[in-house]
């Protein structure tokens, strides 16, 4: 099963490398927005420990939103591959349906970690905030966030009956999750009940992970509870997506 997963993963990576639109949407657009939001919020003029927290909020929040878009679009490509007859070809071979799920999931993790780290590195360059000295913990937080976003994309694709429904549903969910999870502004600005709701979103726990990874001092112990929540969300999303893959209409 592993060679089959790697063959499909390699295909997605080659495709991504060649697709200029994906490259622009994954890196250039969020980079521009992070720069803009940093300027609006006076990040380059800020001083003291609050500066790192603000950078984490702006870079992490906007990066998460675009990561969700990138990974949900990637998951939606499942419908295109199905309609091309590619699933029929793949599944006439000696591989289970789940190779398609796992290959897309791993691709999402790879893309997500790459996108988040590049955007944090860009943030360091733009705003002279020392982010990459926290690299091991930051990478761990990025990995957990990317896994949760990737599995969320798989879940939406597995639940949607068609690519049109998947696109509409995913845009709605991403915007709600981003707003509620604190991607656009700190959740401290929200009413109390919304702050509680925020804790149900993967965006909140991802942003929390970035904040704790970039805090001084930052420790794995402080990061672990958030990673566990993201890990739990990933497991639940993937389990439901896997069940739908086995029984749903994606392969009908």
């Amino acid at each position: 099963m592993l060679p089959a997963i790697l063959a499909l993963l390699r295909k997605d990576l080659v495709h991504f490398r060649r697709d200029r639109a994906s490259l622009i949407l994954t890196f250039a657009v969020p980079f521009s927005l992070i720069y803009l939001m940093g300027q609006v919020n006076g990040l380059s003029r800020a001083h003291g420990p609050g500066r790192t927290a603000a950078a984490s909020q702006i870079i992490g929040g906007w990066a998460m939103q675009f990561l969700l878009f990138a990974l949900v679009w990637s998951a939606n490509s499942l419908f295109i591959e199905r309609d091309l007859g590619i699933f029929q070809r793949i599944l006439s071979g000696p591989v289970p349906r789940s190779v398609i799920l796992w290959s897309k999931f791993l691709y999402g993790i790879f893309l997500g970690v790459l996108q988040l780290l590049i955007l944090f590195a860009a943030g360091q360059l733009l705003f002279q905030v020392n982010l990459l000295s926290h690299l091991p913990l930051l990478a761990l937080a990025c990995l957990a966030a990317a896994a949760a976003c990737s599995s969320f994309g798989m879940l939406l694709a597995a639940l949607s009956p068609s690519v049109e429904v998947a696109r509409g549903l995913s845009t709605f969910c991403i915007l709600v999750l981003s707003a509620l999870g604190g991607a656009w502004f700190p959740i401290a600005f929200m009413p109390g009940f919304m702050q509680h709701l925020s804790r149900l979103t993967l965006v909140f726990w991802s942003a929390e992970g970035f904040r704790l990874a970039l805090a001084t001092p930052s420790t794995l112990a402080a990061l672990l509870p958030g990673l566990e929540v993201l890990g739990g969300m990933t497991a639940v999303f993937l389990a439901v997506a896997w069940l739908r893959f086995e029984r749903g209409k994606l392969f009908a």
Partner: protein
Amino acid sequence: MPPPPEPPALSLRGAAKRYGALTALAGVSLDIAAGEYFGLLGPNGAGKSTLMSLLSGFRAPDAGEVLVGGRAAAEPAARRQLGLVPQGLALYPDLTARENLEVFGGLHGLRGRRLRERAEELLEAVQLSHRARSAVKTFSGGMMRRLNIAAALLHRPRVLLCDEPTVGVDPQSRNAIFDLLGRIQREGTTVVYSTHYMEEAARLCSRIAIIDHGRILALGTVDQLMQRLPFDEEIRFPVSAATDGLCRDLGGAGELSTAEGLHRFRPAAGFRLSSFFLAAERREVPSRLFEIQRPTLEAVFLHLTGKALRQ
């Protein structure tokens, strides 16, 4: 003690499939021998693609069983013996021809040098070596169809399932596909070829099943299928005001059907051709309008279903 007989390459036993209220396959039973070039002939919507999807293990039958070399089609060991050429162009348009073959070869566990060599060999076989590094989206329809077949052959399957592999291709590519499939079959691969082109089925296949509404209506060699017809020849003449009267006069003398601007008259047993031409002369229909032909598979289909194959 003689060795046990080899199981058929493919077997269906009462295989049925429904999609909601639609019966796509209604209890089909069929054996296809190893090395056979077997044709599935029927109009669009007859159940050919459903049958292919059951044979390939992509879908499970609602009833009955599907065996590949004696094993259930859903088993990985059975699927390793199969190569599927889907009706759609199941290729990644943004990848090159070689990259496509490497992806699909990887799904069958091929790797490294073995995979690269096999991909090159197949690109050569389908005459695409010179475009190996071009994105598939830049290919003509015929080139894509050829690559679609190559992608099914990477793991040297014992059974090749071709679901309408020549739809929309130019005659040159079509002939290249026929040559390739013929060569593969001569090397011992069982080829199952579904089509709604009777000329293709008659030209390529040693045995043909005529299928419609999810049922096999007839099965045999072209000659055996022709023997099901109660007539030896078919007279074709154009639809016109002049021939309408002749058609009325022929009532009861045989089977008469009309499709694509042509009347087709198939005389009943004992009906003399001279009687036909006498009737034509009475109606003053010139004899140059008539064309007498040996009946084709289409006539068999028409005889069995009462409708033309392309309707």
